């Protein structure tokens, strides 16, 4: 047996293992640095850099110096920097793909610091989908005088053609279904045949045998008639419902153009509406920028923290690239998150101020940890920010997931918004902001209340007369309030924006003469009427066809009923 063994091979094995272990020890620092920079860059979508990392093995302790995370939306600035990050970890846990860290100390934290080199990687994130991209794109400076109907319609997105088209399509489907149903009912010919049979029965009779035969035939015919009558009654009930729904649809379709007309007339002639549109134009891009910035970070980090989903079923397998297979997840006796960081203690300073706080219970998947992720960050006298207080939590459990955020910023210096060539935007100022709300699976409810001070506005190089006129008026405005509410769903958010700036702007808009408005309304009615005439006619045609089909069914029902009554009388 021993002749099969090669004892020097054992030495070789030990040497190979020692070489592998030695290489790991030698290169561990560098491996950690590469892992942090590589993973961090992939997570953030902008360059993440680390000056150095130290890995101590027994017990496992990792210490990192000089972490810089680029702001993806401003690649020449770091979103934050940390002077030192240190934590202890469990070696066996790491081998088992489980990270359980009691406390991470983050020291020398600084926000929004300048960079020497751009930290952009690949495509700028601003080109990616933002929560309020659509809202920001639809913002345009409103006309300050009544345009022609053609101009207004060229700039407007009418809702009525869509409503009418949807109604027409619905009704076409309903018409096809009802007509098919009519085809399946007893035909005029078969009812006429019943009537002939009835006449023959009535002519029969005579002696006892004849009477018996008459009664038998009458009973058979009555059974046939009742069977058909049952089917026709059902069809008529369905037809009544269909026609009622179609009438409702047709009414909405007919009303839709008038709603468009009302909206456009208000948009161009109501001073309050015009002022509100101007406020959206001036403040909308900045609000969209803030919200998109926050949304970007949420979208980037959510996959690592357990994206907010409504589903209760855990995926049975984690997909990894081809040639690496898929990991099938089995039920654990003691299910625990793969990554768990119980507390991150944050401390730092910026300018003459201080910054501190903590993040607790970072778990992935979060649904396996009973406590939600919570953060609490406070700072004073920071560069460009007099005060910061941010609290929030991200909760994910089966069937219930929600992120609650509350953020207070005081004395935040506003950076310049570059105005469009022909537009106007905020140039500088100071803002006190309160943001709070919830983001859940398929729901969105965020509120932003702000007070702006020492605000200045800048005109685009090619600003026209009306923008200059607006700029002159805004020269006298140095402070205003802003209230924003974002509701709906992440896929289709609704932005409602109110500001005291609207009151100021309302004065310059003035009242458009009532006669002009009447003419504008009439012109809009003509133009929109021309556009929707054909689809509306199709809606009416479909409705008439549906009513016709219902009438056909009603006629057949009454003929069958009359037959049933006459047969009933014959049978006594």
């Amino acid at each position, binding site marked *: 047996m021993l*002749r*099969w*063994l*090669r*004892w020097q*091979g*054992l030495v*070789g*094995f030990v040497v*190979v*293992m020692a070489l592998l272990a030695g290489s790991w020890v030698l290169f561990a620092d560098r491996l950690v640095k590469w892992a942090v920079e590589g993973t961090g860059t992939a997570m953030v979508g902008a360059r993440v850099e680390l000056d150095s990392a130290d890995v101590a093995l027994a017990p496992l302790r990792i210490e990192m110096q000089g972490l810089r995370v680029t702001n993806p939306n401003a690649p020449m600035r770091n979103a934050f920097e940390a002077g030192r990050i240190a934590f202890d970890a469990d070696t*066996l846990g790491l*081998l*088992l*793909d489980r990270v359980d860290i009691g406390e991470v100390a983050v020291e020398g934290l600084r926000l929004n610091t300048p960079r020497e080199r751009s930290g952009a990687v690949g495509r700028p994130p601003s080109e990616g989908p933002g929560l309020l991209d659509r809202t920001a794109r639809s913002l345009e400076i409103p006309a300050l005088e009544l345009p022609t109907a053609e101009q207004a319609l060229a700039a407007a997105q009418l809702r009525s053609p869509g409503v009418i088209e949807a109604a027409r399509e619905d009704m076409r489907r309903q018409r096809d279904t009802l007509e098919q149903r009519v085809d399946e009912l007893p035909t005029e010919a078969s009812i006429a045949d019943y009537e002939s049979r009835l006449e023959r029965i009535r002519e029969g009779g005579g002696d006892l045998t004849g009477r018996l035969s008459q009664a038998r035939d009458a009973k058979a015919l009555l059974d046939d008639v009742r069977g058909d009558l049952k089917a026709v009654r059902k069809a008529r009930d369905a037809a009544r419902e269909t026609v009622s729904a179609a009438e409702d649809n047709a009414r909405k379709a007919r009303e839709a153009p008038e709603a468009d007309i009302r909206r456009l007339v208000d948009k161009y002639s109501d001073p309050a509406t015009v002022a509100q549109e101007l406020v959206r134009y001036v403040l909308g891009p900045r609000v969209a920028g803030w919200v998109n910035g926050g949304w970007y970070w949420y979208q980037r980090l959510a996959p690592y923290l357990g994206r907010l989903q409504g589903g209760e079923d855990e995926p*049975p*397998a984690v997909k990894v690239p*081809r*040639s*690496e*297979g*898929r*990991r*099938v*997840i*089995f*039920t*654990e*006796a003691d299910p625990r998150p793969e990554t768990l960081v119980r507390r991150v203690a944050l401390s730092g300073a910026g300018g003459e101020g201080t910054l501190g706080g903590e993040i607790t219970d970072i778990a992935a998947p979060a649904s396996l940890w009973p406590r939600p992720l919570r953060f609490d960050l406070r700072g004073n006298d920071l560069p460009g920010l007099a005060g910061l207080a941010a609290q929030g939590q991200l909760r994910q459990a089966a069937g219930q997931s929600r992120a609650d955020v509350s953020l207070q910023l005081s004395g935040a210096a506003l950076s310049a918004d570059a105005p469009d060539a022909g537009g106007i935007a905020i140039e500088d100022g100071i803002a006190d902001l309160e943001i709070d709300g919830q983001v859940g699976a398929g729901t969105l409810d965020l509120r932003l209340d702000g007070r702006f001070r020492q605000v200045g506005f800048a005109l685009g190089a090619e600003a026209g007369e009306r923008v200059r006129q607006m700029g002159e008026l805004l020269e006298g405005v140095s402070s205003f309030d802003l209230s924003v509410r974002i509701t709906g769903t992440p896929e289709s958010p609704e932005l409602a924006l109110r500001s005291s700036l609207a009151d100021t702007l309302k004065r310059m808009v003035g009242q458009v003469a009532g006669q002009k408005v009447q003419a504008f309304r009439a012109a809009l009615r003509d133009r929109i009427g021309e556009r929707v005439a054909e689809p509306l006619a199709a809606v009416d045609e479909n409705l008439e066809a549906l009513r016709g089909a219902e009438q056909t069914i009603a006629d057949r029902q009454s003929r069958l009923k009359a037959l049933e009554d006459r047969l009933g009388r014959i049978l006594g």
Partner: protein
Amino acid sequence: MPLRTLARILKALNSEASPAQLAGAACLGMVMGLTPLWSLHNLLVLLLALVLRVNLSAFLLVFVLTTGIAYLADPLFDALGWALLTAGALEPMWTALYNTTLGRLSDFNNTVVLGSLVVALVLCPLVYAVLVRAVKRYRDHVQSWVKRTHLYQAIRGSRFFEVYSALRG
């Protein structure tokens, strides 16, 4: 490179190693080659290859050859692993293994790891038996006949023979 590979195969076949040593080495090389390299079971395979008196040249040669095959066969391994890991009858066993430290370290719940390991282990007895028989037949019938052929005599004076002679082991 193919010349060198062919020379290695012939060198191993014509070496002093017994057919069992060659076949055993091929089996271990196959297991290591077909399955993902950085898997726990490959530590055991490496230990066996070094400690057991198998032919190391054959081990390395088969390892390299089967690594290439493994890449092409990954979809098959993935499908087989998935079928095994999701088979209802086996679920209690996998769940029990998943809840052990050794089970988690072995990465058995990865479809490619399990699929390729099962294929390699099933092939092992077959490959071992076929190779032992093939090496014996080669040495008994082919080797002496080859040495007598004119072609062999011609090859002895060629570049290929230089490569062959330069190989150790």
